């Protein structure tokens, strides 16, 4: 089991969010959490809004919040594509929590539309990613 680390690129629609060598990735697909280690078979899976955890080749851990999209693994390369992806340390938890609280209120009164429901998932993922960075 001696594989080169994976080359990972996390790209959002308007920029490359993160790139580097990685030994482990955990992301949540529509079917459940999936872990990708070096030497993984070619895979293409749809993601749900979630926190993606990455362990880099030099042992650091990174967290990212994505709003769906997909992960593609092939020949030692991994792409994580998402329309918006945010690094854990870029998240301002306070701001996200405030927006989340407003949306929750809407959800409770049953006024939230599909987009807002989706936004709630994204914000939850962002807050989780942010908190994990904080506590680390």
């Amino acid at each position, binding site marked *: 089991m001696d594989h080169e680390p994976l080359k990972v690129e996390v*790209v959002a629609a308007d920029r490359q969010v993160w790139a580097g060598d990685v030994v482990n990735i955990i992301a949540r697909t529509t079917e459940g959490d999936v872990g990708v280690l070096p030497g993984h078979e070619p895979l*293409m*899976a*749809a993601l749900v809004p979630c926190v993606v955890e990455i362990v880099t080749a030099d042992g650091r851990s990174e967290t990212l919040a994505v709003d769906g*999209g*997909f992960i*593609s693994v092939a020949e030692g390369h991994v792409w994580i*594509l998402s329309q918006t992806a945010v690094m854990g340390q870029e998240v301002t938890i306070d701001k996200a929590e405030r927006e989340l609280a407003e949306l929750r209120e809407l959800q409770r009164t049953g006024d939230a539309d599909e987009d807002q429901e989706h936004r709630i998932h994204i914000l939850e993922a962002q807050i989780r990613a942010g908190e994990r960075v904080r506590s680390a």
Partner: protein
Amino acid sequence: MASSLRELRQRRQSVTATKKITRAMELIASSQIVKAQQIARNAMPYTTALTHAVSALASHGEVAHPLLEDRVPARRSAMLVVTGDRGLAGAYSSNVIKAAEQLYTKLTDEGQEVVQYITGNKGVGYFEFRNRPVEQKWTGFSDKPQYSHAREIAEVLIEKFLLPYEEGGVDQIHVVGTRFISMLSQQATATRLLPLVVEETDEPATAGEIIPFYTFEPSAAAVLDQLLPLYVANRVYTVLLQSGASELASRQTAMKAATDNAQQLIERLTREANQARQAEITQEISEITGGAAALAESAGNE
């Protein structure tokens, strides 16, 4: 003579003021274009990865998806025309509109109805002035489009595409935008957005690249379901970015030409004004000397 001198000076002054404006616009456009190109570069990795994934899925075969199906015969098409919000960009918007009109004629000749979507004030103005129905319009972001704009447009288009024909749905979607070839050359082009033609990106594809045998989770169809809307939004975004950069580039070129022209005009007017002033002086001198000679003559007669 005196009045023409004043007129010349006045004109020169107003041309100088205009030149200052065009020069400022030129500089603004050229600084914005660097930013626009940077943004376009930042969006490249996403486009590449997405295109790669879509081609992998498309080559997987046996995947049927409404966004990929060719509907024959096509009875109704949507046309998205991407124009600028503001003028003073040379022929930028009119070139796009010309290309759009060509496509419109071609589609109607094929017997299709055409539903029109417009972005940019210039296009909206053109179609509304001619009382041509515009299904939906977006304005206010032609020179700095955001991904959210593209997403909004893509959602409207996809929804329209998925509607059955009887309820007003369309069978094809075309986009007319401007391709940014270089700072000096931009080209208005029409491309078909849906049903998708999976195109390679500008980057040369490595020859004989073998697409790995992917495992799709949960299934190829489900992944495609999630991917295609992203792909469409990305294509719209790319067109918006390219058109935005093209608008800035053609504004810069147009404003540079205007500034140069103003400079020439100023030089000509200065020369004419100098001539007029000199002529005035010469005339004054000859009047004085003539007058003096006449006086001397009449004094000698006495």
